[in-house]
């Protein structure tokens, strides 16, 4: 913008100044021509004397062509300085002016015919001073244009940043909140326009946070209410179990059913509460690094499985909440048992910056059309044992917990037969050199 401005200014100034000069020179030339004609009309005219007497101003040279002789007021300028084209026009009887360069100096040459005395009068006005003025103007304008351009750029960047930065802040805050950091707020701003956005945003997040906390508290209160009767049931059934020899076989069978259902109920409650917590976006509090192998070993033991099914990389570390991750794999193992015809294998694969756990079963596998849906709450699939004994929440909890840990879970194809669930978690010990440690099939 400023470049255009500068150039335009220069061009306009240049043409204005030049035309001003030209007009002035023209006026002067006519006056001088008049004077010269008057002197020439009188007898005994001495042209050199006339020219000297005229004392030309500002370096102009006066040239007279009379009776085929050329006279000049200046030693440097003479007939040869007058361009031929001008001479011809003036000789034709028409006054004219032309811009030319004389010895490298730009100049205006005015030609005025004096027919009454058969003479032509020329004035050569150099534009050197004008040229220098114009050059100074040019330099000043260029400098000014540069400064203006830089200042403009600086202002522009500053202005745009001060508009863009708050918007970036809003976007960033929204992303943080979506990621679970519900205590994120925008800082107060002095800008009155942005203040509205900031205010609305913050109050929206406040409301959201309150509702989420209310829901989580409701879940917590319900849980507390349920836990007490459940405690009595679980403990009483244990006492009964110790005395099962005192029971008849039918009573023993009934007791077994109660034990199973109670176990399922307890798991349902745990899953539900966990889901409420994780779903509320509450970040895992107790995140620590741990050996994935150890975690799976202990989880298998707790779930009553043999650790012989575990294979793969032993040196992979992940960061997370031990108990929550235990629940993830316990639920997957449980799912393999209930719907997959039995747990077949658990394999750890270490990639550069993530760890994979493959949980394989001997069941029919999950049809491709179901592979997204099964992670929804209360979605139950057909089971291998003809009864839907899953809680319907197990896989939903797996999905949400794993996501809260920065990982993912999905169904994959297992080579051969059976189904496969894959859990991916970020490694706590990511390898920069790209080495992959895999103990089993990938």
């Amino acid at each position, binding site marked *: 913008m400023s470049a255009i401005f500068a150039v335009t200014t220069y061009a306009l100034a240049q043409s204005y100044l030049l035309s001003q000069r030209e007009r002035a020179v023209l006026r002067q030339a006519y006056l001088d021509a008049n004077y010269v004609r008057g002197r020439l009309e009188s007898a005994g005219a001495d042209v050199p004397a006339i020219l000297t007497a005229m004392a030309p101003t500002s370096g102009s040279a006066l040239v007279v062509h009379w009776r085929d002789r050329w006279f000049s007021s200046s030693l440097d300028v003479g007939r040869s300085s007058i361009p031929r084209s001008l001479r011809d026009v003036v000789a034709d009887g028409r006054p004219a002016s032309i811009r030319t360069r004389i010895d490298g100096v730009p100049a205006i040459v005015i030609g005025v015919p004096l027919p009454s005395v058969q003479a032509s009068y020329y004035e050569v006005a150099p534009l050197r001073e004008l040229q220098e003025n114009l050059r100074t103007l040019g330099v000043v304008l260029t400098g000014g244009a540069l400064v203006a351009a830089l200042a403009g750029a600086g202002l522009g960047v500053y202005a745009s940043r001060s508009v863009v930065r708050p918007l970036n802040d809003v976007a960033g805050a929204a992303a943080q909140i979506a990621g679970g950091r519900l205590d994120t707020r925008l800082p107060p701003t002095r800008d009155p326009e942005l203040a509205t956005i900031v205010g609305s945003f913050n109050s929206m997040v406040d409301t959201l946070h309150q509702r989420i906390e209310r829901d989580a508290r409701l879940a*917590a209160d319900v*849980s*507390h209410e349920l*836990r*007490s*009767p*459940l*405690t*009595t*049931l*679980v*403990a*009483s059934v*244990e*006492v009964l179990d*110790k005395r099962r020899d005192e029971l008849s076989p039918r009573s023993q069978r009934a007791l077994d059913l109660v034990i199973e259902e109670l176990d399922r109920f*307890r798991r349902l409650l745990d899953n539900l509460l966990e889901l409420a*917590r994780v779903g509320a976006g509450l970040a895992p*509090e*107790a995140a620590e690094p741990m050996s994935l192998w*150890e*975690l799976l*070993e*202990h989880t298998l033991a*707790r779930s009553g499985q043999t650790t012989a099914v575990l294979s793969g990389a032993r040196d992979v570390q992940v960061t997370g909440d*031990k*108990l929550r991750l*235990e629940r993830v794999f316990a639920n997957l193992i449980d799912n393999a048992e209930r719907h997959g015809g039995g747990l077949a294998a658990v394999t750890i694969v270490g990639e550069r910056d993530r760890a994979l756990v493959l949980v394989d079963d001997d069941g029919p596998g999950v049809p491709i059309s179901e592979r997204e849906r099964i992670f929804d709450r209360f979605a139950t699939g057909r089971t291998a044992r003809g009864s839907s004994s899953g809680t319907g929440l197990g896989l939903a909890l797996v999905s949400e917990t794993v996501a809260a840990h920065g990982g993912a879970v999905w169904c994959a194809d297992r080579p051969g037969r059976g189904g496969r669930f894959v859990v991916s978690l970020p490694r706590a010990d990511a390898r920069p050199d790209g080495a992959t440690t895999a103990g089993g099939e990938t």
Partner: protein
Amino acid sequence: MATRLLVVEDDDRIRSVLRLALEDEGYQVSEATSGEAALRQFRTKPVDMMIVDLMLGEVDGFTCIRDIRKVSDIPIIIISARADTHDIVAGLEAGADDYVTKPFQIKEVTARLRALRRRARTPGDPEVPPDIVLDSTRQLVLSPSRGTLLRDGQDVHLTLTEFRLLSELANPPGRVQSRRALLESVWEHGFFGDERIVDVHIRRLRTKIEQDPGAPRLIVTVRGLGYRLDPQ
């Protein structure tokens, strides 16, 4: 002789089933339905161990534990509704040794109780390490064989668990022990044990044996690794 156990629980049914199950395990069980009742009973009929539910009515579980701790070092297990609240830490800081969460299985409770009983002092055991001077300026002497910690000849009251923890750190002194390792050796918790139990007990030990608990010099935290005992 059967271990005497006091169960402080205001939910009638939970209390009943605990009595049933623990008597099966050979404990001599007495009951209290509130913190105040528990204190009153304790004064007249002392017991060897206690189980206290944090969610008591009038006098809450914390107060009950703190009051008991003023007069006794016996093992206390707390029952809590959830593991991830601050209640657990508060209960441990008030003086409890371990915790279980509802709904618990009886075998969990009995396992905890067994581990606590194993910390009982065993005088005359030849395997026990010799006495060790922890701080010569204050004459702080730990005697695993006698089961005492003396400061200038006076007995410093430690709970069984605190004593066991200190003995573990002193065996040998100057060696860093991870929280995981301490959790296993003192509390016999497995992989999924709650390491906060160790942290709270270290804090409690520090208040009892450090000259300045805020700037501990005897029991030093080694960031990322664990704790270390540095005799002065």
